[in-house]
């Protein structure tokens, strides 16, 4: 596939965003194949494929779509069943959703579809899987899991064991909205499928434009740039000069100035290393002509470490750049009276200070994102996430306990409807935009979600993004911007478009979301964790001066440690998984 080079026209109809390829026409081909000939899933009723295919209702009137809009539309909905049917679904506990049974969107879904759900809540976080594994082992399985994140490898494993239903025949017959998604995004099916071609989950689509550049974003204080009389830096050397000027002018006062700050959850390497080589960050895997490579053993990585070492040695980075937590970072960013940080690595402003959207002079508006830096060898990448943003598998997983997967698939497909999406994550207080209202991308807006995202206004009303939704790029950017109260969404979009999109790496460098076989997965988890620990620890040591990146001995020792942990078998696993992904 050829990467698209335009910066303006945002036709991200492909999941390989910005790399709109030759496949646009190919996707609509064999959509309704599989009908009739396919067998019903294990455990399902024989007549679960007998009902006629689901069809979409007529479009609702009164909704203004921008020209050329690709995304969900609002339609008249009809009940799926006439007699009440009940399914048991396991969901994560969430304070925002509150009681799933009494939640406003739950009620709405029940009215629209006639399908009742008995919810079972499990506590969220890392331990969710402990609980889910216990349920699986005990055979205490619900009809479906919603919002429980199985990895691709787990889906494949449980799918191959017939614990999870292969949804392929159901999707082809009972998911007209998802079929439309597959026309809009021809890559969708490839990304949904496991290596055995089974589809073990109903996906969630969230084509989030600014998320694609999240890892590579950095900010500088424009006020400070003005005060020291410098432009936004474009090379690593200019950047160093800017930070030095910040430090010299001591704009934070009393010697408290931190020219550039980082914290442990926003690693420095995903921004700075891209001036030396394409670096997507953890797990630092890239493709080179179809071969999987690890960044952290390359000479370019070492050059990057030397550069960072230089910044740190000159006192241009905060001392705790590798250990500060989010709270500490906020204390730097929100320093009373006046800012003390000149810039920061962050996914967005909220990573390092408070976002006050009501105040047009709020401090966060002083900070602007800066494009990637050009390194000494003219390397300049913004790590662009083509493949791992956009389609999430495992949002809804149907198990073999479910007698009627067709009904749950239709139930899920209803959630792809425009109005359902708005209710699912914005709550019942959304409004359709009037003609002439502008969206985030400056085109006609479709909807507005209410004034704020304050927690208590949406509490108990939404599904807090646990549901399945079809949020296309156009849909996301069609949120109305209140001209009097601009949110951070517009600048975030514009800065992503102008600062990062132009520097994205070619798509064939990105390591795709692969699926591992069970035994590989265990090995991958173990070696991967150790490698991650070693890389992070050594990076911190190299930058803070406990090790010297210029010292050949130190570097050789580091490579030795990496090799000993098992880089070679690790890369072999990834290579095999990549080849399976390519088919």
């Amino acid at each position, binding site marked *: 596939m050829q990467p698209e080079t335009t910066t303006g026209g945002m036709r991200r109809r492909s999941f390989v965003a910005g790399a709109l390829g030759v496949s646009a026409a190919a996707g609509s081909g064999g959509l309704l194949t599989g009908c009739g000939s396919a067998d019903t899933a294990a455990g399902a009723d024989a007549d679960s494929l007998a009902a006629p295919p689901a069809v979409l209702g007529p479009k609702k009137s009164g909704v203004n779509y921008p020209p050329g809009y690709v995304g969900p539309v609002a339609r008249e909905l009809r009940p799926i069943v006439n007699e009440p049917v009940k399914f048991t679904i*396991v969901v994560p*506990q*969430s*304070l*925002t959703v*509150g*009681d*799933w049974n009494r939640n406003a969107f739950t009620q709405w879904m029940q009215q629209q579809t006639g399908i009742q759900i008995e919810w*079972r*809540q*499990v*506590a*969220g*976080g*890392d*331990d969710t899987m*402990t*609980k889910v*594994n*216990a349920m699986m*082992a*005990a055979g*205490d399985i619900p009809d479906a899991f919603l919002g429980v994140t199985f990895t691709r490898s787990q889906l494949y494993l449980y799918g191959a064991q017939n614990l999870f239903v292969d949804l392929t025949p159901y999707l082809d017959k009972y998911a007209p909205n998802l079929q439309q998604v597959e026309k809009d995004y021809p890559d969708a099916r490839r990304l949904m499928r496991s290596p055995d071609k089974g589809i073990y989950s109903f996906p969630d689509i*969230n084509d*989030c434009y*600014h*998320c694609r550049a*999240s*890892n590579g974003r950095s900010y500088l204080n424009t006020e400070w740039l003005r005060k020291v009389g410098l432009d936004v830096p474009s090379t690593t050397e200019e950047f160093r000069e800017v930070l030095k000027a910040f430090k010299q002018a001591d704009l934070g006062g009393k010697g408290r100035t931190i020219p550039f700050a980082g914290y442990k*959850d*926003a690693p420095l390497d995903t921004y700075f290393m891209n001036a030396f080589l394409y670096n997507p*960050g953890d797990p630092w895997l890239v493709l080179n002509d179809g071969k999987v490579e690890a960044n952290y053993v390359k000479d370019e990585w070492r050059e990057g470490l030397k550069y960072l070492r230089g910044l740190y040695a000159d006192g241009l980075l905060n001392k705790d750049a590798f250990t500060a937590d*989010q*709270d500490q970072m*906020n*204390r730097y960013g*929100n*320093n*009373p009276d006046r800012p003390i940080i000149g810039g920061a690595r962050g*996914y*967005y402003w*909220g*990573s390092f200070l*408070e*976002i006050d959207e009501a105040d047009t002079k709020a401090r966060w508006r002083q900070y602007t994102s800066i494009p990637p830096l050009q390194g000494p060898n003219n390397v300049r990448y913004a790590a662009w996430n083509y493949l791992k943003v956009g389609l*999430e598998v495992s949002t809804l997983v149907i198990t073999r306990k479910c007698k009627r997967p067709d009904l749950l698939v239709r139930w899920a497909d209803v959630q792809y409807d425009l109005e359902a999406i708005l209710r699912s994550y914005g709550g019942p207080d959304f409004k359709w935009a009037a003609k002439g209202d502008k969206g985030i991308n400056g085109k006609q807006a479709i909807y507005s979600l209410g004034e704020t*995202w*304050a*927690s*208590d206004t*949406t*509490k108990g009303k939404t599904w*807090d*993004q646990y549901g399945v939704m079809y949020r296309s790029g156009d849909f996301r950017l069609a949120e109305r911007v209140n001209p009097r109260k601009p949110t*951070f*969404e517009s600048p*975030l979009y514009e800065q992503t478009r102008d600062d990062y999109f132009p520097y994205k790496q070619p798509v064939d460098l990105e390591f795709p979301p692969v699926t591992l076989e069970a035994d590989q997965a265990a090995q991958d988890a173990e070696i991967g964790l150790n490698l991650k620990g070693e890389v992070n620890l050594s990076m911190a040591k190299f930058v803070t001066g406990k090790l010297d990146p210029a010292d050949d001995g130190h570097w050789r020792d580091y490579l030795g440690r990496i090799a000993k942990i098992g880089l070679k078998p690790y890369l072999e696993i990834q290579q095999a998984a990549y080849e399976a992904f390519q088919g």
Partner: protein
Amino acid sequence: MTTTMQAPAPVRETRADRIVMICNYAALGLFTLAVLYPLVYVFSASLSDPKNVASGKVWLWPVGFSLDAFKAVFDYGSIVSGFSNSLIYAIGGALLATVLTLFAAYPLSRQGLPGKGLIMALFVFTMMFSGGLIPTYLVVDRVGLLNTRWAIILPAALAVWNVIITRTYFQVTIPEELLEAARVDGCSDFGFFWRVVLPLSKPIVAVNMLFYAVAQWNSWFSALIYLTNEHLFPLQLVLRQILIQHNVDPSQIRDTSELIRLKELQEQLKFSLIVIATIPPLLIYPFVQKHFVKGAMIGSLKG
């Protein structure tokens, strides 16, 4: 000491004594500060404007006094129900567990119990080896406890550790001679336990109650594993949810608005929730404390 018989003057401390005293007070003072400061900080932070907490203005006393955080807490149904559930688990669990512990410990403390060694060995065996998560889950499932309050109370209803402490307490404070004397007076075993042993055992009863209640109050894992009905979740599980909902890897988050929302929520609720979760144990502690030292010490001596 250095006093003499005929000296009416007040006891004079030597210089060495005074230095030791000063050092003692200084060290104890430091310890007290180290323990007290986090408490005071959390309390102050819960009463401050979250913005001032985030920007580091709060370090000892509340800055920008506000009760919003506490109001917000009671806005969340799951917190209120979590609090009452935790009370039920702590009180119910402590009562049941204490009764069982006394019943198990008393016979084991008596000389004449046949097979005492074997029973004790079996008890201790379970301290070293447990069935593991999945087998225990299967058992709880098969007996039909899953997703009921009993799943929280019953599996934790007896701690062998407490049985050992209690047994030792009985052995030390209730001599065999007392039992013989009671028998001579025509007292049955049950009568002896009820009329003699229990009244003499208030300290160990208090210690058991406290241990069990605090353990239940602080526990969340069994609730995580055995409960899928939010109305039964204890407070700690809700508290944990608030704390971790925020600690997602920002690069994995799908929506920035979501992140802001969680951040606000956490900043608002974190400290007030900790205060609320700490209050009950703090309240009961002073009443149990006088027994606490006595009971636990006697029980653990000569174990």
